[in-house]
């Protein structure tokens, strides 16, 4: 499904990784590992086409994601470090706004069910500013649930989540995998996934640009 070909990423004159290649098939879960500053976020942003790699390319269904953006974005969902939540919109409006950018029409019941699943059942009309940061992250989980995407790209999805939240995320990933979907994620918290999982390790490369070798 997703294929990464000899990616190279340089940030602030530091070579984070180069000649990085891997692929991701259906129903696969892949964890990107590595210490702080090893380029996990940059890699995920490259995967979804937000960032341009210094070299290499990302293919979706055999085609470069830059040439078939529309298909690719219709089948992937990304959540990053930032909450994407508007303080002045209610929980329900926030979820809707996120779904609207993807032109998804989701029924009211489905939305409510998703909100209930992430533990925001009675919060539909509460404005974003009244929520804790964990609750804001939960809105994102509801969004991921409703987005109907085959590929999930999750950057530190456990940030600010409590124990139940972590368990919820884990079960969501398992369900998604069982339905044939794939997940790429990073995390610093232990994620206990009861399934086969691959990992790509990004090492901290002390050498600078142009001298590095493959580190994965």
């Amino acid at each position, binding site marked *: 499904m997703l294929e990464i070909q000899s990616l190279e990423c340089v*940030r*602030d*004159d530091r070579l984070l990784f180069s000649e990085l290649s891997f692929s991701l098939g259906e129903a696969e879960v892949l964890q990107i590992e590595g210490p702080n500053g090893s380029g996990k976020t940059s890699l995920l942003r490259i995967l979804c086409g937000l960032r*341009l790699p210094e070299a290499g390319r990302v293919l979706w269904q055999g085609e470069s994601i830059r040439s078939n953006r529309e298909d690719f974005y219709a089948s992937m969902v990304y959540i990053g470090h930032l909450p994407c939540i508007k303080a002045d919109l209610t929980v329900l409006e926030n979820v809707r706004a996120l779904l609207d950018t993807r032109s998804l029409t989701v029924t009211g019941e489905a939305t409510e069910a998703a909100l209930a699943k992430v533990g925001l059942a009675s919060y539909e009309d509460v404005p974003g500013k009244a929520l804790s940061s964990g609750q804001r992250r939960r809105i994102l989980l509801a969004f991921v649930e409703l987005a109907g995407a085959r590929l999930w790209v999750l950057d530190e999805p456990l940030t600010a989540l409590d124990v139940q939240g972590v368990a919820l995320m884990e079960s969501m990933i398992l369900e998604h995998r069982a339905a044939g979907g794939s997940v790429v994620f990073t995390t610093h918290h232990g994620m206990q996934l009861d399934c086969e999982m691959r990992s790509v390790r990004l090492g901290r490369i002390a050498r*600078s*640009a*142009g*001298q590095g070798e493959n580190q994965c």
Partner: protein
Amino acid sequence: MIKSIWHWIQRFSSPKHFYGMSAKLIPWFTVSALLVGLYGLYLGLFVAPTDYQQGESYRIIFIHVPAAWMSLFVYMVMAISSGIGIIWQIRLADMVAAASAPIGASFAFLALVTGSLWGKPMWGAYWVWDARLTSELILLFLYFGYMALQSAIEDQRSADKASGLLAIVGVVNITIIHYSVEWWNTLHQGATVAKFDKPSMHIDMLIPLLLMALAFKLFYAAVVLVRTRNEALYRDRNRRWVRELINEL
């Protein structure tokens, strides 16, 4: 065929290759700029006839006009190489654009200074809101915007692309700005201000003018090569080819 051309372009445009090649070109451009410039100045200052209306003071056009032309020309170079950098991801093109900006701004500044020096005997004031001077001033602002954006963004690659896009937007605008300023000027000042250009120019004035224009172009070529080399060295300071270069010293 296309692939081999592409391959050749990529090889040719690698900073390392450029660094070696430009070293050979710079002396040629410098010397020819000097020779053409000196000859042009000689013709312009001593051979060209005195203007029957403006006396000797008109001779500043041999600096002013080429500088004004160059300020526009360099902006075009900047926009085109930025476009190449954005579309084909050629780093050398971005370096050329970044290296050109201060040179172009200097040309614009020179055109403004010489223009206002010329204005004093002509109009009795150093600054008159003449259409060309005003356009030149706006062009200088566009250069400042480009350079400010370039230096405000820390990530080199985004800085190049962002300021490059600004340069391209600027080119579309320059035409509109030029047209509207012309129009604004005729509207507000009409024929009271003498125009810089004459309907026809004596051939003895035209030749030194064209020579000076050529000299300015050669000078720009030499300076932009030097500046691009510096840019390449600085940006690639951690790359192997620069390291090897340093070790050879």
